[in-house]
């Protein structure tokens, strides 16, 4: 109970900090926070799949890009559309793509699943380049005339203003992550961990493994699509390199690994760490890839459960240390 209150207080402090941040941060830091939040949402959506069903997707950029492209295309070709329907269309399109692929995907596991997702991701990448007429090819779509995020007569927000963008993205990301967290606590969400550990047992419990996998795959895809929409709004350019390349799929995997596999908020920590690392590396050297490579190797070798794992370990050691100290203290007293 005390732990819960502590967490609640911590949450409120964090929320407050996010709320007042624009007063203290410059545009650069604000934009970095936006980028971070989008990256975190994308990584959490992938983590939903990875940590809770043990399915590693190598082609999650497919959904990220699908969301962005559908949103971008609807803005470019549909006159007078506002942002909210465009975003909805983007996310739903990503979810729909996931739905279309589910019959193929749910029947495979392990490496085959990773390979199949990668194949579709790459296929989408190539197709987007080929369909130059709609997607703009390598140059992509530019959204320099961003429509307003508005409900007519209620409110209207300008997404080119950094602070407004910041609040909007933060709000959407927090709500989305909250939704996903809530999902993991529902009975169906609980089953996902079961699928990862022992698919057969889940079948015995009366849940259909394939259907459960399909549901989580679609949810994960939809939120990845939403992250893509936000990224497109932020960057104002939707290009294959920025949204569909294989690196885009790898980044959230890295974030999950670094943050800590199997922990819901691990990817958020991982995204923050990667962002920070990128900034530091850029400041001091041109060899950003070298720094990243070495960090990945170190993480896998010495902290296989990422930052969260290190934290747990540290707590255990701290516990042992305190226990010993306490014992010592008692001895002294007696």
């Amino acid at each position: 109970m005390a732990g819960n209150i502590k967490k609640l207080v911590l949450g409120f402090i964090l929320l407050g900090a996010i709320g007042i941040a624009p007063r203290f941060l410059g545009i650069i830091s604000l934009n970095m926070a936006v980028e971070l939040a989008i990256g975190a949402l994308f990584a959490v959506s992938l983590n939903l799949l990875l940590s809770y069903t043990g399915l590693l997707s190598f082609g999650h950029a497919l959904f990220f890009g699908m969301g962005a492209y559908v949103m971008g295309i609807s803005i470019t070709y549909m006159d007078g559309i506002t942002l909210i329907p465009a975003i909805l269309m983007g996310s739903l399109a990503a979810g729909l793509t996931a739905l279309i692929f589910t019959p193929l995907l749910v029947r495979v596991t392990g490496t085959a699943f990773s390979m199949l997702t990668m194949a579709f991701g790459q296929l989408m990448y190539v197709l987007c380049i080929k369909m130059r007429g709609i997607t703009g090819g390598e140059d992509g779509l530019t959204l320099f005339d961003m429509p307003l995020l508005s409900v007519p007569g209620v409110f209207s927000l300008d997404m080119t203003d950094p602070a407004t963008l910041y609040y909007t993205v933060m709000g959407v990301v927090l709500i989305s992550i909250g939704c996903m967290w809530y999902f993991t606590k529902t009975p169906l969400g609980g089953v996902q961990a079961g699928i990862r550990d022992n698919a057969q047992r889940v079948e015995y419990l009366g849940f259909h493994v394939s259907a459960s996998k399909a549901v989580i795959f679609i949810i994960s895809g939809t939120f990845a699509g939403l992250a893509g929409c936000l990224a497109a709004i932020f960057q104002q350019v939707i290009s294959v390199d920025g949204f569909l390349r294989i690196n885009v799929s790898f980044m959230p995997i890295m974030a999950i690994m670094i943050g800590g596999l199997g922990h819901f908020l691990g990817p958020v920590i991982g995204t923050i760490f990667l962002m920070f690392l990128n900034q530091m590396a850029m400041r001091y050297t041109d060899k950003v890839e070298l720094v990243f490579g070495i960090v990945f190797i170190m993480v896998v070798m010495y902290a296989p459960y990422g930052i969260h794992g290190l934290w747990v370990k540290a707590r255990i050691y701290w516990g042992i240390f305190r226990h010993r100290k306490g014992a010592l203290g008692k001895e002294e007293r007696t």
Partner: protein
Amino acid sequence: MKVLNVKGYLFVLTLLMMGLIFCNNCIAFQPLAGDIETFNPSFQYFDEDADDVIKIGLLWPFSGPAAANGAIYWLQIGWAVHDINTQGGVMVDGKQKKIVLIKGDTQMEPAAAKRAAEKLCLQDNVDIIMGSTGSHIAAIGQNVAAKYKKIFVNMASYSDTLMDQDKFNKYTFRTCSTTSMLANGLAHFYANRPEKDFYILCQDYAYGHEFAENFVQALAQVRPDARIVGKDFHPLFVKDFAPYLSKIQGANAQVIITADYTPDSNNLTKQWDQLGMTIPLAGPFVLNPLALQSIGEPYGKGFVTVQSCLLDLDKPGNKEFALAWNTQWKRWKDPLYSTNLFQWTGSTLAQATIGTYWLMHVIEKAGELNPDKIVATWEGDQTIIFGNLYSMRACDHQAMFNMHVSEIEWPNDYYEKSAGPIKVTAIPAEKIVPPPPKGLKNCQ
């Protein structure tokens, strides 16, 4: 009239000289007049904290897979900046100001590019941004720059649509050519040549298609009897060009028109040689010293290259620059810059240098760093650098200059051991520059 006439050049040159005599303050620097011997591309030092400097942000990939590209522009712009700095700098606000270059690493990724551009604008507080390879990156760069009212000088992105009515903003200038200028230049070159069967082999993306379309259109106008015997678009970074080349051989083409750049162009040249082909390649990037060196004698003799600033060693200004560059190159030890690729300047390797000199001339003419003043000064500005005339079209901010086409010669007296362009044909700007986009309001 194929070559711009010499009298015209002399006239403008005289005017310029007279201007120098009468107005000492107007132009404080001259290209190549500085202490270029102390220039070292690997260790360019800029005193960023000094007061009264002109800060220029470079928006290029300096890390990641495309880092080589950033290095090329870092060298070119650094050259001009070093030259100007050692002459005391640029006369602005009544003071001689030195130039400081600040890297903004795009990593060739849109997200990183946006971050880098914003950092340049807001944190480093640069006065001007130069960029950028990759038209999607350049689009982001010019958009961010316009948002914070910074001049953006596009020196490396050729896409015609980058300055169309949707993307144009008044703070962006393009000093390099567009894809259609390159293609038109090449087509005009073939107007009076015997070859008439062409095969087009381009990269399968916007740039390649744009080039091919423009070439075909221009060729149809200047050479109605020419035939396009085949057209292929290959994906970026092809491993093996052999299937394409064998197909071309079967099509009985006389020239292969290709807009490919490295590494595709290198690979193409290499495998062209391995298959024992004799049909010459023609395009903007076929003059790559590394690729030509690797195929051995006769080093791609007969290839045709088209470039905005192909240096003509018969021309005084050009020759000076080329020789100064070559002398310097012999001293560069860093593997980044010591390869044959950098042995001679010209073609892609001179474009940004010239653009930098031009920009500095404009700043000096404007006399202040206020972006609106610079915009007003640059629009319609004309200048001569290394003997070539450059003018800025006011309505869409596209640089206008002659396009240069040449056959590659070997052996030759000028380029030590390597192949090079000898008799350069200048295609006059008015023939090749596309009409300005109609939607822009100044263009009507």
